[in-house]
């Protein structure tokens, strides 16, 4: 990470902490609803971050991260509902449970590659909602009816609304997780992970225990996504099998690709996009109907599809990748031809 991106990150972070405090000045702009919306974006961001650790940095494809999200959410919900556990304590529990599930799933996954791994994870995403409804688990999971929860209360008598508190809570968790991921990737282990992605066999000959790294990465990735699930259980205050259908996993994948595979910042961007694209598709659909006077109904789902394709056209490397090249291009066009060539070579190398 370059110094300039770091500077930007700090700026965004400072803004994220300060903006909610502007409520007395701009009550409409920083309403509870907006904060809640940003909270859901951050939750999605964490989930995509988990997926990115696995797919972007370790090269294992998963179409089933919704399953870990569900396991995390249900772990939190069951603990809160049956054991009256405080909501913040459910996060480490969800992380541990999901790590174990992810690690165990990673063992057979070692044998599978590419499309086969895609199928296995896809199957996992399909199986989890059905397992939640399994007859002998019904007492715990609430079966098809799910579990209704309470929203987290504001602690220590802080002068915040529930949504403000939730926002800060999620923001802090996200920053911690992001920081941990960045550190991990920057360490020996992180480089080993990426070496496996780039050339498994070579990594093996260099003495990296590829199996161990792959399974542990699976576990960590699942834990991240599981924490996101646990957070969502608190934020939505309701879990049900219907919340975790196969499309959830696909949306994480979309968030990953659109944000930027193998980019931490991209994960957060992807999380934001994940929430925004739905809303903007709907807005665009109404806009097309009411303001452009379209004769036929262009449904939001159609707009969603078109948006995805157009986005992939414009930025096949994701938003972060696209912006990166754009900035590079702008810079090099302002530089001398010699530096331009150098930049091009560098760009080639980073690809």
């Amino acid at each position, binding site marked *: 990470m370059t110094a300039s991106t770091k500077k930007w990150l700090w700026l965004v972070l400072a803004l994220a902490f300060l903006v909610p405090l502007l409520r007395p000045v701009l009550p409409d702009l920083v309403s509870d609803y907006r904060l809640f919306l940003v909270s859901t974006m951050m939750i999605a961001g964490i989930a995509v971050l988990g997926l990115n650790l696995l*797919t972007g940095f370790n090269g294992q*494809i998963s179409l089933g991260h919704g399953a870990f999200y569900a396991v995390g959410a249900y772990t939190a919900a069951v603990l809160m509902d049956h054991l009256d556990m405080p909501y913040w304590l459910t996060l480490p529990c969800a992380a541990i449970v999901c790590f174990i599930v992810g690690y165990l799933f990673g063992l*057979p996954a070692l*044998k*599978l*590659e590419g*499309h*086969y791994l*895609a*199928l*296995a994870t*896809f*199957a996992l995403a*399909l*199986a989890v909602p*059905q*397992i939640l*409804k*399994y*007859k*002998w688990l019904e007492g715990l999971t609430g079966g098809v009816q799910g579990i209704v929860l309470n929203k987290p209360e504001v602690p220590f008598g802080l002068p915040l609304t529930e949504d403000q508190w939730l926002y800060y809570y999620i923001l802090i968790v996200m920053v911690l997780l992001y920081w941990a991921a960045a550190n991990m990737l920057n360490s020996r282990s992180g480089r080993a992970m990426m070496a496996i992605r780039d050339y498994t*066999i070579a990594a093996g000959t260099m003495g990296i225990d590829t199996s161990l790294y792959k399974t542990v990465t699976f576990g960590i990735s699942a834990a991240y996504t599981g924490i996101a699930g646990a957070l969502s259980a608190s934020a939505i205050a309701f879990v049900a099998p219907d919340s975790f259908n196969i499309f959830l996993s*696909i949306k994480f*994948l*979309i968030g*990953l*690709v*659109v944000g930027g*595979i193998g980019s931490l910042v991209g994960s957060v961007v992807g999380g934001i996009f994940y929430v925004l694209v739905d809303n903007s598709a709907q807005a665009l659909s109404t806009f097309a109907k009411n303001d452009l006077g379209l004769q*036929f*109904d262009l*449904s939001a*789902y*159609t707009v*969603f*599809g*078109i*948006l*995805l*394709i157009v*986005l*992939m*056209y414009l930025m*096949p*490397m*994701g938003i972060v990748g696209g912006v990166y090249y754009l900035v590079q291009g702008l810079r090099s066009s302002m530089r001398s031809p010699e530096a331009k060539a150098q930049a091009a070579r560098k760009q080639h190398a980073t690809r």
Partner: protein
Amino acid sequence: MEQFLQQVASGLANGAIYACVALALVMIYVSTDHINFAQGEMAMFSTYISWQLMSWGISFWIAFILAVVLSFILGVVIERVILRPLHNAPVLSIVVVFIGLLAIFNSVAGAIWSYLIKEYPSPFPKSSFGIAGVIGPHQLGVVLVTLIVLGLLFAFFRYTPLGLAMRAAAQNPQMARLVGVRVDWMLALGWGLAAAVGAVAGIMVAHIVYLDPNMMAGILLYAFAGALVGGIGNPGGAVLGGFIVGVLENMVAFAGNQIEKTTGIYIIGNGEKLTVALIIVIFVLTVRPAGIFGRVVVKRV
């Protein structure tokens, strides 16, 4: 015993559906190396086209042929217009494009033809013969059509120069280009063929599951599993894989049923049959990573 036979027969009938869609998946995979998640929705769309033609008074088989031809053209157009510019994009970006296509086909079909289910005629005679009560005439017909399509594809790839060119383009594009194969067009042709096979699948399936925009959602996964079990690069394997998944799934439910009957304890049932079937599939794949009939590709390091 009667139940066992009926379960196997119904598994085979479902398997035929999966096999048909799996064939379409394999077609795209063989020619472009991608798994097309929009395949099911494209097949659904083709089926609606044939339905529309029939509702205009065209007879079944003519509508069938027209729909297959139109689907072929649609497939070629999608490849040329939408996927060609993304030639060098990463695999997952292509997957996202497929998801986009899925959303578009699904919602456009819903907008044109509504989400209500429609009945779809069966072209096969409604006779009752020796095995009536075990397997219906339409189901038998589907099995037959699937095998015919498989035979045709096999002959096409094996014995025609075009088929050979397509295989060459997929396996080694550079070399194929050197010997004068127009690789670009071969890819588009692969898409067209896949769309056409998908149309056949959709038309065969629609009588059984009824026609609606979401009719392929569940089936695609089974087809995917079937194709992988059989070996994704192998049409024959994919068909067999489809049948295996269909029967296996019913057998899981049957076994659970029998256990509950004899011991009175519910262990697995219809709610878990898909899960258990998939676990078995994945287990098989960990033992034979290239699928049952797939050839292991030895990579040179």
